[in-house]
C-alpha cells in the first residue's frame, strides 16, 4: 500500500471562544459549542454537514468529569455519528487535529469536526497535576516547577542572555493584544515590567508564564472535494507528524528532546521543506513558558542548537520578522490546556487562509502548527499552506 493512496485534506473553517480565567456564563457544552458554531460559520457549513467528530482535552481530572465527550455527544452534533476522544497530554489539541486529518486522508470521511477544550475553572489543574503516583517523580508545584530546571539548563548550554525570556513575553503579550479572543491582552507591557514581575520558578517570572484559561477551539477538516466546493479560502494540510518518548530515561535530553526533533524532521520531509526558516512564513509554537520559544526553534530546526535565542533577541520572531512566532499571542496569552494545541493548529491555518485579522502576517502562504505535552515527550505538528502542493 503506497502513501499515494492518501487523500488530500484541508482546513475549511476555524473557531474559538473568548478565552478567560473563568467562563461561568457557559457550561462545558456551551463553551465547546461557542467554538464549534464559529468554526461552522467560518466554513459556511452546518452540523448536519459533519460526518464525524474528534474531541480532545487534557486529563479528565481538570474538570472532574470522566470522558466528558459522552455527555457532549448531543451538543457537538455527534449523535448517530462516529466520535473519537483523543488524549495525549498537553499535545492533545495537536493530536486531535492530526487524528481528524488522518480520518480524511484515509478516505473515511468527507468532513470531520475537531473540537478541543479545557474549562479549568471547573476544577483545579494544579491539584490534578500534583498527585503522588507510585514509582513516578511527583510534579509538586505543577508544570512550571517541572520545566524551570530545563530552562536553566538551556541558558547554561546556549549562553543565552538572561533577558531573552522576557523579550518573548513582551512580544507574545503585545501580539495577544491584537487577538480579540486572547485571555491576556497587554499592549503596554515592557521588558522592564516583565523583569519586575515576581519570580515564580527561577528563571521563569510571573509574566513569562501561561495563564489558566477556560476555552475551546474547533476546526473543520474536509477532503479535496469539500475544499474545492468551499467558496471561502481553505488551508491545505501538507503534512502532519507525531512522536512520543518516555518521560524519564537515562540519556533523556529535556532541553532538546529527540521526539520533538524527530517529529520536526519527519514533518519537513513529508511537507517537502528543506529549510524551515526560509520556507515557513509563520509558526504557531506551543510556548507555555517564555524560554520555550528559543528552545523549540532549535528543536524544530529553525536555528542551530544553541542559536535559537539569537532569532528572538534580534526581533526576528515578531510579526514582520524573519520567522514570526505566535502572532496570536500563543499559549502565553491563552491556555485552555486541552485546546492550546488545536489553537496553534487553527491559528496557523488562519494565517494561510488570510483570516487572522489584526495579527495577520502579511503574505503568509506556509505555516507551522505545533504542540507538545507531558514531560517534553509528546509532539504533534502540521504544516498548512494556501495551495495543495
Amino acid at each position: 500500500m503506497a502513501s499515494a493512496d492518501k487523500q488530500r485534506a484541508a482546513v475549511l473553517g476555524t473557531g474559538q471562544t473568548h478565552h478567560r480565567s473563568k467562563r461561568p456564563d457557559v457550561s462545558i457544552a456551551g463553551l465547546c459549542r461557542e467554538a464549534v458554531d464559529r468554526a461552522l460559520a467560518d466554513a459556511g457549513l452546518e452540523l448536519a454537514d459533519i460526518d464525524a467528530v474528534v474531541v480532545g482535552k487534557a486529563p479528565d481530572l481538570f474538570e472532574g468529569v470522566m470522558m466528558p465527550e459522552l455527555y457532549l455527544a448531543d451538543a457537538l452534533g455527534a449523535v448517530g455519528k462516529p466520535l473519537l476522544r483523543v488524549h495525549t497530554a498537553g499535545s492533545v489539541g495537536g493530536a486531535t487535529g492530526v487524528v481528524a486529518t488522518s480520518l480524511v486522508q484515509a478516505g473515511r470521511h468527507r468532513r470531520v469536526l475537531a473540537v478541543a477544550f479545557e474549562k479549568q475553572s471547573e476544577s483545579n489543574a494544579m491539584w490534578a497535576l500534583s498527585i503522588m503516583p507510585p514509582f513516578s517523580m511527583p510534579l509538586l508545584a505543577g508544570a512550571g516547577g517541572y520545566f524551570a530546571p530545563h530552562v536553566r539548563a538551556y541558558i547554561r548550554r546556549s549562553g543565552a542572555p538572561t533577558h531573552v525570556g522576557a523579550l518573548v513575553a513582551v512580544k507574545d503579550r503585545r501580539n495577544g493584544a491584537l487577538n480579540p479572543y486572547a485571555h491576556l491582552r497587554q499592549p503596554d507591557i515592557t521588558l522592564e515590567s516583565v523583569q519586575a514581575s515576581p519570580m515564580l520558578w527561577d528563571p521563569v517570572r510571573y509574566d513569562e508564564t501561561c495563564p489558566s484559561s477556560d476555552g475551546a477551539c474547533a476546526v473543520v477538516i474536509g477532503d479535496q472535494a469539500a475544499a474545492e466546493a468551499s467558496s471561502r479560502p481553505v488551508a491545505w494540510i501538507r503534512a502532519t507528524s507525531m512522536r512520543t518518548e518516555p518521560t524519564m530515561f537515562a540519556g533523556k535530553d529535556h532541553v532538546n528532546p529527540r521526539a520533538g526533533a524527530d517529529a520536526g524532521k519527519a514533518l519537513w520531509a513529508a511537507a517537502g521543506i528543506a529549510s524551515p526558516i526560509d520556507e515557513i512564513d509563520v509558526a504557531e509554537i506551543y510556548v507555555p513558558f517564555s524560554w520555550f520559544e528559543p528552545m523549540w526553534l532549535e528543536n524544530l530546526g529553525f536555528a542551530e542548537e544553541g542559536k535559537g535565542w539569537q532569532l528572538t533577541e534580534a526581533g526576528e520572531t515578531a510579526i514582520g520578522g524573519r520567522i514570526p512566532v505566535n502572532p496570536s499571542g500563543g499559549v502565553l496569552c491563552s491556555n485552555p490546556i486541552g485546546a492550546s494545541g488545536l489553537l496553534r493548529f487553527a491559528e496557523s491555518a488562519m494565517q494561510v487562509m488570510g483570516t487572522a485579522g489584526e495579527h495577520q502576517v502579511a503574505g503568509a502562504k506556509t505555516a507551522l502548527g505545533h504542540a507538545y505535552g507531558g514531560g517534553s515527550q509528546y509532539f504533534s505538528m502540521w504544516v498548512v499552506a494556501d495551495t495543495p502542493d
Partner: protein
Amino acid sequence: MPEAAVIAFAEAPNLRRTDGTTNGVEMLVPIFREVFEQTGLTKSDIGFWCSGSSDYLAGRAFSFVSAVDAIGAFPPVMESHVEMDGAFALYEAWVKVLTGEAEIALAYGFGKSSAGDLRRVLALQLDPYVVAPLWPDSVSIAALQARLGLDENLWTKRAMAEVAVRSRAAAVSNARAQPASDELEVEELLSEPYVADPLHAHDCAPITDGAAVVVIAAADRARELCERPAWITGFEHRIDSGSLGARDLTRAPSATAAGVAAGAAAAGATVDVAELHAPFTHQELILRAALGLPDSVRISPSGGALAGNPMFAAGLARIGHAARQVMSGSASRALGHATSGPALQQNLVCVVEAH
C-alpha cells in the same frame, strides 16, 4: 481487497485484583512479548502505536504517559492515545494504516478496575451538572435498562440467566477468563439475591484488572507475517445521546448503525461468530437484536465480558478473540464489538474475514 488485517492478539489474565500499578505496565509487557513471539516482529517494526485507557480509572492524571514505558519508546515512536476502550485505539491505528503512514500498527488497552469503587467511578461519565451529582452508579443504570425491557416483554429473566450460564461455560475453554463454570443452572442463578433489582450477580460482568493488545498490518505485510490473517472488511462506530432520558434504553441504535455500515448483517454474509462486549446479560440480548444476529451465530466463545471485563481493554479483547477465531480457522467471518459509556451509549463493530 481489504487493505489491512489483524495478525496477532494477546490478553493479560483477567483477574479480580492485581498488585501492579494503575499504569498497566506490569500487564502490558508480557502481552507485548506474546504478540512479538507470534509474529516474529520487534518493537522497531511497529510503525504506529495507539492505546486506550482512562485517567479516572487510574485515579491520576496522565496514566497513559507511564504506560509508554511498556513500549521502551526510545528511539521515539509514532504514537497516540484515546481516552476510550482500546478498540477505538485499534480504529485509530487502522486509519493510520489506511493513510499509508504505517504498515504495521499495534493497539493496546489496559485498565486496573480494582483500584477504585468502579460503579461509583463510572457515575462520573454522566452529565456533570444535572445527573452525576445524584451519583447514579453504573450497575443501577443497567438495572433500570434491564427493568424497562422486562416490563415491555422484550426479554425475560430466564433469557438473561441463560446468557450467564452460556458465557461462564464458554469461559472454561479460555484459560485467561475470570469466573468459569460449566455447572451453573438457570434455576439456581435465579434464586440468588439481587445486586440491583432485577440484576443478580450473574447478570453483571465481574470487576476485572486486565489488558489486551492487537497487531494489524497492511495487506502485503499481513500475508508475510500471518498464515491466515483476519482481514478487516468493516470497521465502524457510532454514538447515541448522552442523555439517558432522551434514549430508548431497550435499543442500541448506534450498534445497529455501526453494524450496518460495517456490513455485519449484510444479506447472505452473516458472521459465524460474534464476540460481543456486553457487560450485563440483558445488554447481550439488546446487541444481538441491534446487530440482527441470527440464532446460528456463536456468541462470545471466549466467555465474553461476563467472564472478564477489564475496563478499556475488554472491547479490544473482543476484537482480538473474533480475529483469533478466523486466524485459527474456526470461523471464516467474525464480528468483534466494543461498547463505551452508560447503558450501551457508544458502539463499535469490527468485521474480520479469512479471505
